[in-house]
């Protein structure tokens, strides 16, 4: 804080609705989703000269194939930003989106930029596996026991956390049901409306009768994941996926999803110059490493670290977006840090809302910003665990 020359303010944040994998957004390219959120976040700061944008930093956890080719640069050009605006794609798996916000803020805080866009985009519908198009592991991983955890699938790490932190199947399922319940209630009450920029998917489909290509339009307004009918009984029927005698099921894990989010950050100078109304001040970001085989506990290290950096007490944070990669790790984090369940994911989490990997950090930042605009939070946090054993946490202070 003392090293920075100026503050970074968030003036707008928006996101697409989150689609279920192979759902409503299945044919929407990640660069198109990205262009959509960039256009819409700029539209929320009318009058701001786009030529001033110092860089567009985009998080993406599998930056290859449709989301390869430096998807950031392609997305910003498709969004109609001037070609003088640069763009870069960054990857720290599930935290990529909030990492992008932190890097963008840092450019401003250092005084080397005054306007930045941070974003995230991910389509899991188009990625053939969760591990990308070509999977190739380093044989050296198996040469030392302490590295074998690198080979663990995420579900298996959740099993390890469940066992080590003694999180029961019932607790995991109850957590999942609560996530669906909160998310469903939030959608019904229209609480995501402000942050979402609805997406019109245009599917080009063959019309076999006429021989013509027909375009089927589908306006997607809401997150697709939440199930109003989720119940303990229903979840209890699901079998563990990752371990024969395990407790982690498809029902108490995050959903695979498609989505994008974008955040517009500016300096104080820009606020005044363009008469923009800030939502929040960026208050800091931290990452930390943990053993790969229990990657889910990453936030246990990252959250205290960012709070210490910012000099803020945990009790002062009143809105925490904790990515629900798995109910098991979410509960382990909450119990260890004694997070107040009332403050964690008040509108539901990734088990219900979905988790488009590298986009999630930007998407949930938009959720925190919306909460601040409603006056529901002074300090807000976006935090998550990260594959191969890390945790990340970004902190925001409302200036509404």
């Amino acid at each position: 804080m003392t090293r920075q020359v100026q503050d970074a303010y968030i003036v707008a944040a928006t996101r697409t609705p989150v689609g279920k994998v192979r759902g409503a957004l299945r044919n929407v390219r990640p660069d198109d989703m990205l262009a959509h959120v960039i256009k819409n976040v700029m539209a929320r700061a009318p009058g701001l000269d786009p030529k001033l944008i110092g860089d567009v930093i985009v998080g993406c956890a599998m930056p290859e194939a449709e989301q390869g080719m430096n998807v950031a640069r392609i997305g910003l050009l498709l969004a109609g930003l001037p070609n003088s605006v640069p763009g870069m794609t960054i990857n720290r798996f599930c935290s990529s989106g909030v990492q992008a916000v932190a890097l963008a803020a840092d450019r401003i805080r250092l005084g080397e930029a005054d306007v930045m866009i941070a974003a995230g985009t991910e389509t899991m519908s188009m990625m053939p596996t969760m591990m990308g198009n070509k999977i190739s592991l380093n044989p050296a991983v198996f040469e030392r026991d302490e590295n074998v955890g690198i080979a663990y699938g995420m579900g298996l790490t959740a099993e390890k956390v469940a066992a080590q932190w003694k999180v029961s199947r019932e607790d995991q399922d109850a957590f999942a049901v609560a996530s669906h319940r909160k998310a469903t209630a939030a959608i019904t009450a229209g609480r995501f409306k402000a942050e979402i920029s609805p997406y019109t998917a245009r599917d080009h489909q063959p019309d076999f009768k006429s021989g013509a290509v027909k375009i089927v339009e589908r306006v997607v307004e809401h997150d697709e994941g939440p199930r109003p009918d989720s119940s303990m009984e229903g979840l209890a029927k699901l079998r563990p996926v990752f371990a024969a005698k395990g407790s982690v099921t498809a029902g108490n894990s995050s959903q695979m999803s498609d989505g994008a989010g974008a955040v517009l950050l500016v300096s104080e100078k820009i606020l005044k110059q363009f008469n923009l109304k800030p939502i929040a001040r960026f208050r800091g970001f931290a990452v930390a490493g943990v053993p790969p085989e229990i990657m889910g506990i990453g936030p246990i290290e990252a959250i205290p670290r960012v709070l210490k950096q910012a000099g803020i007490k945990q009790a002062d944070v009143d809105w925490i977006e904790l990515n629900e990669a798995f109910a098991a790790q979410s509960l382990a984090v909450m119990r260890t840090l004694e997070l107040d369940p009332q403050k964690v994911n008040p509108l539901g989490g990734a088990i219900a809302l979905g988790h488009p990997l590298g986009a999630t950090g930007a998407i949930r930042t938009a959720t925190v910003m919306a909460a601040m605009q409603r006056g529901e939070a002074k300090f807000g946090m976006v935090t998550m665990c990260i594959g191969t054993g890390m945790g990340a946490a970004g902190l925001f202070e409302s200036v509404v």
Partner: protein
Amino acid sequence: MSNFIVRKVAVLGAGVMGAQIAAHCANANVPVVLFDLPAKEGDPNGIVKKALDGLKKLEPSPLAAKDRVAYIDAANYDSGLEQLRGCDLIIEAIAERMDWKHDLYRKVAPFVAEHAIFASNTSGLSINALAEALPAGLKPRFCGVHFFNPPRYMQLVELIACKGTAPELLDNLETFLTTTLGKGVVRALDTPNFVANRVGVFSMLAVMHHTERLGLGFDVVDALTGPAIGRPKSATYRTADVVGLDTLAHVIKTMQDTLPADPWHKFYAAPAWLTFLIGKGALGQKTRAGIYRKEGKAIHVVDLAKQDYRPSAGEVDAEVAAILKIRNPAEKFEKLRAHASPQAQFLWAIFRDIFHYCAFHLESIAGNARDVDLAMRWGFGWKEGPFETWQAAGWQAIANAVKADIDAGQAMSAAPLPAWVFDGRVGVHGKAGSYSASARVEQPRSTLPVYARQVFPERVLGEAEERGTTVFESEGVRMWTAPGDADIAVLSFKSKANTLGPDVLEGIIEAVARAERDYQGLVIWQSKPPFSAGANLAALAPALQAKDFAGLEKGVARFQQMSQTLKYAQVPVVAAVSGMALGGGCEVVMHSSRAVAALESYIGLVEAGVGLIPAGGGCKEFALRASEAAARIAGGDVFLFLQPVFQTVAMANVSKSALEARELGFLRESDPVVFNAQEILHVARQTARALAESGWRPKLPPRGIKVAGRNGIATLEMMLVNMREGGMISAHDYRVAKGAAAALCGGDVETGTPVNEDWLLAVERHEFVELLKTEKTQQRIAHMLETGKPLRN
């Protein structure tokens, strides 16, 4: 006979039989439209769509490959009848109600194409009576085609003409059913329940009668009437549960109503206990309770004396079991008849009454005795038909015994045996054919051209056996030529389950050498499935016990040499596969110039089950096929092709059909799949001949096989780590699978390194021998040899 082309089939009725018949047509690359009533709500084709979903869940699967179901179009009688016009064959399979069938016939008749065949899958209604609802123009194109459940697996189809059915049409249909759908056709007369059900249901009634008369338990009777006497495991009462007790009662009722003059008529009635169970809703398997009921893991059976279920035991008396083991049928029957125990008396009685019944009715229900015997084999899974059993036990002796029982009033009917039984014959099957009681001659087999495709049709006992001319014979194999085909030699194994021991290996190598010298091609064919149950593990045991690993490696090397000999033979070698081709047997298939596989081919590399990896060239072949496949796509990644193969090998997956064997990579796209197992020898010989005629040269040994190498092994190991840590596989499973990974990836070399076949074979051999050295693999082998079952350790 001009070509009979079936471009499309329509099946009317999406019930159990209709849907499965449709599935089997789709299996055979025949597109189908499946009809049923329009659904009252929602999608009008909803009923059919639900049936199609049901097909995917049924076990054993009616679909030979998952994608097949996409070739069945759903339709309904209200809006879909126009689609009938494009169908060359229409099979009606709705519920067994004459009035419903008549209504449907009237409704669909205007939409039936002018050339199309219209056939009913009725299991017992009169074909002539059914035909009455048809317009005159359609009657000559109408007949019965009676499939048995499950139609993919049961070989029998009864073909029933009605008055005026055009003979050529029946021939065409028989040809289609035989070659395209792979069925065994028996021509039946239009009598109630036709042949198989008439005899089969009477057999069940006889069993029920004698069960009650002798006070035996249902479980005991099932122990007596199953494999002990050459009938299926489900025997009598479990079969009834599977069929459905209500269905069984319905069929019995049909006999009661339609056969009033039959001497056994008073037995055509459901026993009181059967009616009672049906009344209670205990209909068998479909209601989870019938004659048997599962209680937790235990199986309970109805006890008539207790009027309740009790735990099922059912054991055959030691003395009776000993009699059943007697190999000489004459002696066996004599002893059964003489033995006083209720079980022996029961067995004699059920055979006596079935002999009596078949002899009496032969004239009216079937063309000849062969049709009865084949119908019972193919339709009820009996190892031999009733006439075969009788003839084997001594025709006259049995005839006299049956007569004596009839005279003594002990048989179920007093009707005398027909006179032909006593005309001095020694049986009903002989060199000239099988006896026809209606024509009073021995009838030879059908001369329909389709049967020329069956070099060795399924023989009934007593029929002349053709063995061909031996070229050479060893302990392990016999190489021979079939009559009229001197240029293509056939090799058959002689070992139990056609396993591959040293004798067989050497035999194969010798046969290839002889074929290269003297013949146009070589076909590997077994007179009976399986093709091969794999390498002979017992042959490994002595060297393993002596820890002679150098010797074991030599043995593996010899196996590999055999595989390579097949692959690089200078004449085409065609494997004709039917039934299991496991482990080493699979490797023989993979190394042949071509495989011709019967639909029911169960192929797999199952070495993991005994803690080993395929080392007869199986891993090598997969590694090089992955390299070739990858080379065909831009930027090809060998690993993408190896990953599914690795799972197949590591999990010891076995294909559930020849089509699935293609999907798993055991068969190549160029390997023909033949629906009728009786035709594989013919097709294999023609294939060998065609390959020879097209100037056969073996493939050139591939150079520069790109392997997945050490990164590939590590990536596969990543999956294994997850499975082991997740408690899904044992540490030794992991060890075995890692060996397979190494062999499939070409060893610990850089990814993309070009290697040759010898390198891959060496890696495979090394991994195999290393596994042999592990205690847990040795335990697995010992366990398999002792129990015949895999050990998970």
